[in-house]
């Protein structure tokens, strides 16, 4: 069954808010040294549950949004998001997407892969990104954040589906056209 349009709209809305959230929460950034980042987890969720067009469109738009609020060259974040979305979608039939631990590791891997790829692309450019010993702390933390966010996305969108989608009709084992009459001469109508 195709995912409902509401789910797709909500996915894009959440990504838009996610990009904005990356520029906010100064206290969080000061405490941990990384911005609040859940976008790789959302891309991974989309790749495992939505169609190819939705997933790739989300990856491209999200990459553009991230770059527009950053000093990075426009387009640098698009490639990693797009590649991850495509790879996960093409291999989605091999992934145990309903298992929570699998969702965690997919989110974790997505978070690590996207940030490492972006960093590699930036390093190949003219401006050297700010890296150092703290990078060895930042990358695992970003991966962990997305590892937690991925199962959360599955739970959230499942709840959204239950709240707004048509519920499946419950099939009762009781049949109105059959009844058992108890008495001296038991019979079934």
């Amino acid at each position, binding site marked *: 069954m195709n995912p409902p349009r509401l789910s797709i709209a909500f996915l894009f809305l959440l990504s838009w808010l996610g990009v904005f959230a990356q520029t*906010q929460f100064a206290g969080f*950034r000061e405490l941990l040294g990384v*911005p609040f980042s859940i976008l790789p987890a959302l891309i991974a969720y989309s790749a495992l549950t939505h169609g190819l067009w939705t997933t790739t469109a989300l990856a491209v738009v999200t990459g553009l949004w991230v770059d527009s609020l950053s*000093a990075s*060259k426009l387009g640098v974040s698009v490639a990693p998001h797009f590649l991850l979305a495509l790879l996960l979608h093409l291999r989605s039939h091999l992934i145990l997407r309903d298992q929570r631990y699998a969702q965690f590791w997919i989110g974790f891997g997505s978070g690590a892969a996207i940030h490492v790829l972006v960093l590699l692309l930036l390093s190949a450019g003219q401006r050297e990104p*700010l890296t150092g010993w703290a990078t060895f702390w930042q990358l695992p933390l970003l991966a962990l954040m997305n590892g937690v966010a991925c199962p959360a996305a599955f739970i959230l969108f499942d709840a959204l589906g239950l709240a707004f989608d048509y519920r499946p009709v419950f099939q009762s084992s009781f049949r109105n056209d059959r009844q058992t009459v108890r008495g001296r001469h038991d019979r079934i109508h």
Partner: protein
Amino acid sequence: MVLLLALLNLPASVAERLKLVVSGSFLPLFGLRSATHSFLDRASYQLLPRSVLIEELVKARLEISDLQATLLQSQEALGENARLRAALGNPPKGPWNRRFARVIGRDSTTWWRTLRIDLGSRDGIQPNQVVMTAAGLVGRVSQVGLTHSDVALVGDAECGVSVVVRETRDQGIIKAGQASSSEGGYVELSLLQNSPDVMAGQTILTSGLGGVFPSGIPVGVIQDSRAMEGGLFTSARVRLSAALNRLEEVWVLQP
């Protein structure tokens, strides 16, 4: 893939314009954020008891009278400075025109040190204008949109600063480098020559060389120093005066 290659090979000016257009989709959220902050500020004023307000007022009056006395003294020194500069044939230094701006966001990635302020080209902001707080230098305006501007912070690759040690007058450059947020914001200073007199506790000011930053703006305080490259030059760790991670309001210096 074709779209991606086209994006990455766009001319810089087109890419910057496109960036401004795409980031325009976040204007409602930035507006909502500013409105919420203003509302919360006003609400907090309403909740403050009268006695606290009176106490603050008395404190502010004392501070104003103190600053007025300092201003008189400074005006005298400025006048003397202008006369001496005129005698030496140097043009007089103009006063700084400060424009108050609010910080509305930070870089969406971990790899740059930039922030976004709520003033743009319609407010007269132009690239390379200096951004600072009362504590010290913050950076320079790197990109200007209609309603907002991006500021490259001290320590970013886009914001090299020529500096001088106030006590020894040794000159150097603030290099781009990662500053651990938990350490409160440090940057690396490379002095142009070996300077054994440079030591912890000395103050770093902008030198005025380079043409972007006027001289005399406090940048930070030296934490430690060491000789580099077999004693050819000195490198020092500088704690920035302005708390870059906790900035909420800044001044933009305009000509």
